[in-house]
């Protein structure tokens, strides 16, 4: 039999035992950060940079384009925004829109919670949610117009109705999928403490599915806006009391495109505000803090 190749053997080392180290400078230990790291650590700074970049690209594209009726420059838009805020009633109109939006959003969220609770509690509820969602979610708001008019007439009632349509389905889909993904151990732990029905959903499922729910809330928030802007045109508003959608539409009709962009800019600013002043703090105080998201 041929000799096997020699096997590696780790060397023998002396044993030792030693006392504990001084831990006085424990709190001081930090990996040194380079200046660049320090600067790029500031989230706000990075995001503002992105915004500045976007604005520059816009301006650089729009100036040589010279087509203010299609695509005004940033400076023109900024001026229009300034003018609309100061002389027009952009802020008031935004406020009108936001009020309706919040009503519809809140109603949609509540209904969605009821529907998804039903869906996890009973199999019929589950079928109902799945079927309704796959049926109604793809329907454009225009489809709801006749029903909205029949049931709520003109005005905010109908608007809230279509906003619910915008919020309900995406939020339910995200929430439901989140509920279904909650780990079995966590579910069993909750049920072990005698939680059932609404308490079970509220104390266990909603919390454990919070990342999904949060993304559902963000998505449906955005869609509520989209729908609102579009619905204000369809439902119109008795003149005088229109919101942002109306502001955009009116200016579009008058071909005051810089003002149209200013209106859209208001939507963007509100979107950025909601993300950075509401959703991000919520995220930091919940899923981040709990280690459920990195």
């Amino acid at each position, binding site marked *: 039999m041929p000799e096997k190749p020699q096997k590696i053997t780790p060397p023998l080392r002396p044993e030792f035992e030693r006392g504990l180290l001084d831990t006085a400078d424990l709190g001081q230990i930090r990996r040194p950060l380079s200046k660049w790291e320090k600067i790029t650590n500031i989230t706000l700074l990075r995001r503002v940079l992105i915004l500045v970049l976007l604005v520059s690209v816009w301006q650089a594209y729009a100036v040589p384009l010279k*087509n203010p009726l299609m695509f005004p420059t940033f400076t023109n838009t900024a001026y229009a925004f300034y003018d609309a805020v100061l002389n027009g009633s952009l802020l008031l109109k935004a406020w009108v829109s936001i009020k309706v939006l919040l009503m519809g959003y809140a109603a949609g969220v509540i209904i969605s919670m009821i529907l998804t609770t039903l869906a996890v509690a009973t199999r019929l509820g589950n079928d109902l949610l799945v079927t309704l969602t796959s049926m109604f979610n793809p329907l454009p708001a225009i489809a709801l117009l006749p029903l909205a*008019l029949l049931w709520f007439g*003109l005005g905010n009632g109908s608007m809230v109705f279509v906003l619910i349509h915008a919020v309900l389905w995406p939020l339910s889909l995200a929430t439901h999928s989140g509920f279904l993904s909650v780990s079995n151990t966590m579910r069993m732990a909750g049920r072990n403490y005698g939680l059932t029905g609404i308490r079970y959903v509220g104390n266990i499922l909603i919390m454990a599915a919070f990342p999904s729910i949060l993304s559902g809330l963000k998505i449906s928030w955005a869609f509520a806006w989209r729908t609102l802007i579009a619905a204000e045109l369809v439902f*119109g508003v008795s003149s005088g009391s229109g919101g942002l959608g109306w502001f955009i539409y009116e200016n579009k*009709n008058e071909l005051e495109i810089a003002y149209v962009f200013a209106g859209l800019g208001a939507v963007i600013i509100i979107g950025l505000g909601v993300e950075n002043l509401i959703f991000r703090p919520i995220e930091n105080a919940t899923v981040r803090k709990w280690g459920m998201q990195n």
Partner: protein
Amino acid sequence: SSVTTTPARAEVKEVRLAQQFGIGYLPLQMMREYKLIEKAAKKLGLGDIKVTWARFSGGAAMNDALLSGNVDFASGGVGPLLTIWDKSKGNLNVKGVAALNAMPLYLNTNNPKVKTLKDFTANDKIALPSVKVSVQARTLQMAAEQAFGPGKYDVLDKWTVSMKHPDGVAALLSGKSGITAHFTSPPFMYQELRDPKVHKVISSYDVLGGPSTFNAVWARAVFRNDNPKMYKAVVNALKKSMEMINADKNAAAKVYIKQTHSKLSLKFIEKIVSDPEISFTITPRNTMKYAKFMYKVGALNTKAKSWKDYFFPEIYGLSGS
């Protein structure tokens, strides 16, 4: 025009026109059906050309298409024409090519108590295509000024509601949505009037003192400058289509049904087309009244001295107004 084009310069081989929905666009439908532009172009020596027809559900998108150079001729109401002329002045210089028709617009109501504008109360809601800015809204403002006195053109505005034509019809006829009046155009106003509960309050002809242009065609100056023959071909085709409609209303009604896949009866369409109030002509009628009014209320920055300010010269020979 100041720009003289050398005849040698090659013109485009394709012309793109945009139309909207409604009986007012019947001349365009005729042009499409009978390939009138193609024929006119051939006569002018342009050879075989391609004509592309785009359909839009609203004026805003159509104007975007025109301004971005995706269509060459747009069509729509007189109000939008004036707006785009005003706003594109010194830039793209959009002007009218020709009128498409003269048509009345009716304000109908299902409220038996309303006989004149003065009978409207806070309980009434007037639907029209878009509050304050549509032709209907302008006409209503002009009527209000006539009824309530100078400067009081906006007294009815607070009761107006934006609604697309068909939604307005459904709302008025169903009587369940709070809409009690609807300022609309053919064929919707006639459909409404078939219901005995609905009656007419005013017609735009009353307000303007006679037949007035409802729809028109417009284009960018640069297209006309670069493609004078093609432009001419379109104008000629327009003229030709008017002649054909006026010659055979029945055939025209058939074309309408065919082109729009309409399920309305031929009789109904023929009746509208033959209505003495309605005429198909390229001559602009009573457009200056709108121009003056819109300037007065600040909707236009430019004061038009004549209808020729916002139309291209090809039709200056006509007795427009």
